[in-house]
């Protein structure tokens, strides 16, 4: 069937089962937008800034577990996506970003709204393409989706010159994508699985250290089965939260810089550390030489470059997390092991962990006249039954959300872990709510981050999304202020926000609802009212201004070197 490039493009999206796209029009994609208008299978969400389109597509991917899609125009439209793409790259999120490009004859001429976006995004995409010939359009789009979602997922960018999209083609029949060069490994090597399992059986103090790979690899169920079968305690990275139920007694919560005392102690004293879909990031390891220094390290990861990058690994397993956990469960089931006896061997280790938990639980000093941010998160957890999708911006509020909300299911914490992108959470909430219309979606925000993508109120109101924003307002860029307090003699350089807008009025200006709480007694009524309201509500919690996030491991120190409350 003969059709234009733009029609073929839409047909490709249908093939990939795309129902929602986030975008912003412009000269180079005007033909594409004309085609979007003439169909009703795919819903286009008009954002107010291209960065937000990418964050929304990214969160859509994180909630659904499938590929998110954004469309923008050439030049500034394309450059505005870069932060969003880098955010998805660092967290391995499958998205495909389509950028318009000037007509092929003008490429390289410094034409109006021309940039070399393929060149710009080369280091922050999993792969990218410039489609110079209409014949390549459909195969390239199919390949882009395949690359984005397979192996270690990641963002892919496809640059679409205007003249290519206006040309006519015969739509090629669908066929499986086969690439000469790219074949990710999913199945683990059986020999390595046996080696790992034998080491775990001998362990007296094992710890599972799980990351975002467990969630991306949909391995949560198999991992939970494995941990419970052998009574192995589990700690999670920021990206791994929800990969194992946070309320389970075996959960140690998050580890690392703002991890729990007991998670960091357990890792430090472990004799076998089983890393699953985690990458030994500096925020997790602290001083690398002293990280789990007495442990034999097993590392399961789909990406061979993650293995032995920061910490030398004893037993590497290159595989999908799900496939590896299935094989490990099978190995344990097939081996003639008395599970009850095995569990009772764990007694002393679990007892030790319990002692650590009792000695230094996550805590804060409660006050009656001023709202503590941790209290707000605890109330949110309680009043949503731990069942909301929580997005966050980046900073103190993000860490409090990670510490005090119990994430019991995968894909419920949507946060920028690797890049640490302020302004992520608000557009991410938009993507999350589009992906899960019936769910409660809460953006836990700070007054600094919130202002970085605040224009998206308009998109949220246009799409009638009932997103709730829990703004922890301290009038500071709080995380940097905390570092200045602790390590720079309280020299608060550029961290006090001397002008902060009236967020309640701001919400109202967009037609949303604004609520404010200034006393602890007002927190619960405000949250209850917000949850009962079926439109977008911003809750402005005026919190203790100089509250810090603890425990804290100062950058570069060993993780046992924690500053406690």
């Amino acid at each position, binding site marked *: 069937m003969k059709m234009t490039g733009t029609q073929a493009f839409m047909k490709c999206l249908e093939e990939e089962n795309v129902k929602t796209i986030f975008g912003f029009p412009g000269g180079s994609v005007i033909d594409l937008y004309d085609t979007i208008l003439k169909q009703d299978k795919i819903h286009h969400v008009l954002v107010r800034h291209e960065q937000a389109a990418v964050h929304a597509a990214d969160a859509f991917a994180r909630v659904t577990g499938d590929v998110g899609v954004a469309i923008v125009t050439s030049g500034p439209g394309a450059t505005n996506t870069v932060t969003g793409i880098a955010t998805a790259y660092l967290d391995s999120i499958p998205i495909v970003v389509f950028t318009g490009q000037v007509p092929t004859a003008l490429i390289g001429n410094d034409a109006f709204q021309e940039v070399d976006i*393929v*060149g710009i995004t*080369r*280091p922050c995409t*999993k*792969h990218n393409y*410039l489609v110079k010939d209409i014949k390549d359009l459909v195969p390239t789009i199919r390949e882009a989706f395949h*690359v984005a979602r397979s192996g270690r997922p990641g963002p892919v960018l496809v640059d679409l010159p205007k003249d290519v999209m206006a040309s006519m083609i015969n739509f090629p029949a669908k066929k499986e994508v086969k*690439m*000469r*060069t*790219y074949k990710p490994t999913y199945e683990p090597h059986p020999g390595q699985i046996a080696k790992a399992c034998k080491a775990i059986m001998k362990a007296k103090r094992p710890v599972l250290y799980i990351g975002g790979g467990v969630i991306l690899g949909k391995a949560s169920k198999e991992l939970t089965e494995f941990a419970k079968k052998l009574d192995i305690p589990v700690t999670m990275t920021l990206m791994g939260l929800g990969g194992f139920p946070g309320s389970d007694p075996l959960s140690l919560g998050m580890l690392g810089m703002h991890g729990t005392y007991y998670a960091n102690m357990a890792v430090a004293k472990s004799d076998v550390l089983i890393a699953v879909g985690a990458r030994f990031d500096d925020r997790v390891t602290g001083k690398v030489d002293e990280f789990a220094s007495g442990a034999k390290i097993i590392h399961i990861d789909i*990406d*061979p*470059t993650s293995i*032995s*990058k920061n910490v*030398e690994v004893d037993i590497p397993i290159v595989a999908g997390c799900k496939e590896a956990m299935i094989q490990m469960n099978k190995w344990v089931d097939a081996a003639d092991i008395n599970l009850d006896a095995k569990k009772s061997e764990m007694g002393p280790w679990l007892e030790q962990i319990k002692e650590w938990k009792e000695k230094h639980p996550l805590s804060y000093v409660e006050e009656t006249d001023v709202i503590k941010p941790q209290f707000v998160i605890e109330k949110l957890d309680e009043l949503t039954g731990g069942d909301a999708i929580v997005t966050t911006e980046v900073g103190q509020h993000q860490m409090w959300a990670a510490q005090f909300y119990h994430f019991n299911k995968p894909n419920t914490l949507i946060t920028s872990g690797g890049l640490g992108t302020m302004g992520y959470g608000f557009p991410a909430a938009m993507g999350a709510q589009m992906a899960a219309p019936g769910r409660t979606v809460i953006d836990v925000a700070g007054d600094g981050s919130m202002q970085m993508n605040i224009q998206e109120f308009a998109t949220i109101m246009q799409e009638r999304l009932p997103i709730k924003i829990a703004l922890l307002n301290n009038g500071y860029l709080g995380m940097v202020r905390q570092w200045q307090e602790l390590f720079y003699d309280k020299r608060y350089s550029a961290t006090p926000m001397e002008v902060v807008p009236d967020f309640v009025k701001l919400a109202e200006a967009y037609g949303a609802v604004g609520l404010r709480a200034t006393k602890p007694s007002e927190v619960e009524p405000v949250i209850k009212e917000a949850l009962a309201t079926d439109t977008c509500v911003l809750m402005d919690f005026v919190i203790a201004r100089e509250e810090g996030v603890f425990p804290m491991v100062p950058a570069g120190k060993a993780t046992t070197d924690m500053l406690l409350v």
Partner: protein
Amino acid sequence: MKHTISVLLQNKPGVLSRVTGLFSGRGFNIESLSVAQTMDNEISCLTLVTRGDNAIIEQITKQLHKLIDVIKVTDISETDYVEREMALIRIKAESSTRAEVLRIADIFRARVVDVSQKSYSIEVTGSQGKIEAVTELLKPIGIQEIVRTGSIAMTRASKKY
């Protein structure tokens, strides 16, 4: 330690930039690099020489392999291999030194490829060490210009039958 790495990759625009971008972005260094088509015109072969301890070389080969357009990565230095580099050198050659230049060229089995009243241009092929040796000897006479290709390398064929 010095390593010579051979990379087979798709012959597409921008592929070289993916490789060099990887090196600059991750702080690896490239001592020399040479690339051209193979028998299959859809595939190029790239030879690069780099330095690093085992952990760095392991990361380099893994990261190269991770590039979507890369087909095969071999650390040739781990095998028995042949390595060659070519250099074109223009040397000052006036009546007093003309014979000496030719003598040195002859010793290194270099060929004269261009000649003028005041200079010789020679072509010399060999290992990096050989190229360096010949340039050292010619330096006192006066090298006017030098262009080197960078190493290319190939694993030796198996001698077992």
